């Protein structure tokens, strides 16, 4: 890609937005691959930090692209990355919304809808894997991840409490 980081941000995120079935959580591995490995915009740690900040901020988790964009090219980068990630898929959503109802019972529609579920499941699992590799360098961190997974599976607790506890453990310096 071009040397201009804004063009690279726009190109990568616009493309990614069209393939990330399952939303922000499905897009994490590709964002990580591009930002940390291909373009080397940020370190593994900085990527994990951006993920954490996006999780605790209000609003959609996809807002991680705003953080990556800002890290790469300041306010312009934040704006370009956000627009690239939301633009194409918004246009698609707008177009599809108008015709979708008509095909409510259509066989192809049901096939597409149920066919994409396992793909997005695999992608989200890959996100968890990529994040665990960045986050769980210590035994305590791995235990926090494991316990959170169990608590998240068994209860419907507000995630902010879980993040607060995780943050406190981090602060304690055991990680």
């Amino acid at each position, binding site marked *: 890609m071009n040397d201009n980081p804004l063009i690279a941000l726009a190109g990568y995120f616009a493309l990614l937005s069209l393939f990330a079935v399952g939303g922000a959580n499905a897009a994490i591995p590709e964002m990580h691959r591009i930002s940390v490995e291909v373009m080397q915009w940020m370190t593994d740690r900085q990527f994990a930090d951006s993920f954490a900040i996006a999780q605790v901020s209000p609003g959609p988790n996809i807002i991680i692209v705003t953080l990556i964009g800002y890290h790469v090219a300041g306010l312009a980068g934040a704006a370009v990355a956000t627009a690239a990630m939301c633009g194409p898929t918004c246009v698609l959503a707008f177009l599809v919304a108008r015709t979708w109802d008509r095909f409510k019972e259509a066989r192809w529609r049901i096939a597409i809808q149920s066919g994409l579920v396992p793909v997005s499941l695999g992608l989200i699992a890959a996100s968890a894997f990529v994040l665990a590799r960045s986050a769980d360098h210590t035994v305590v961190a791995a235990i926090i991840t494991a316990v*959170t997974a169990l608590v998240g599976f068994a209860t419907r607790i507000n995630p902010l409490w879980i993040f607060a506890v995780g943050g406190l453990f981090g602060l304690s310096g055991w990680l």
Partner: protein
Amino acid sequence: MIVEQKHWMTADEFNEAFALSQFLPGPNVVNFSVVFGSRFGGAPGAAVALAGLMGPPLLIVTILAILYARCGDIEMLSRILAGITAAATGLLISVVAKMAAPLFRKRWNWAPFIAIAAFVGVAIMQWPLPWVFVMLAPVSVALAWVKR
């Protein structure tokens, strides 16, 4: 709120719009705001709903980005963030488990194989997501088509 307080949509319409935004690529909530907004006011409605959803969070996260750029090196902050990432990763695993449970329960079902292939391609082989998608999505949709 959309259904119960404002009566902007019936529960069925809401579920329908939600299912649609789940399956579309890209951020689900963002898609939902566009689908929802366009039902009311066409393109302007979609734009207004999107701006309402994204505006305040964008402002907050931009401030956080600036703070992180200035203070990201502070040891205390990076410890807290490391703890949050570890917890958030666990939550993501629980999401995966919840999604996977119904797919893996049926016997002789193709869905787990597609999910595992997507996982291996992206997480282990580290292939670009668009490639993995283009390889797997058509197969998965075709299998779903045949099965019915």
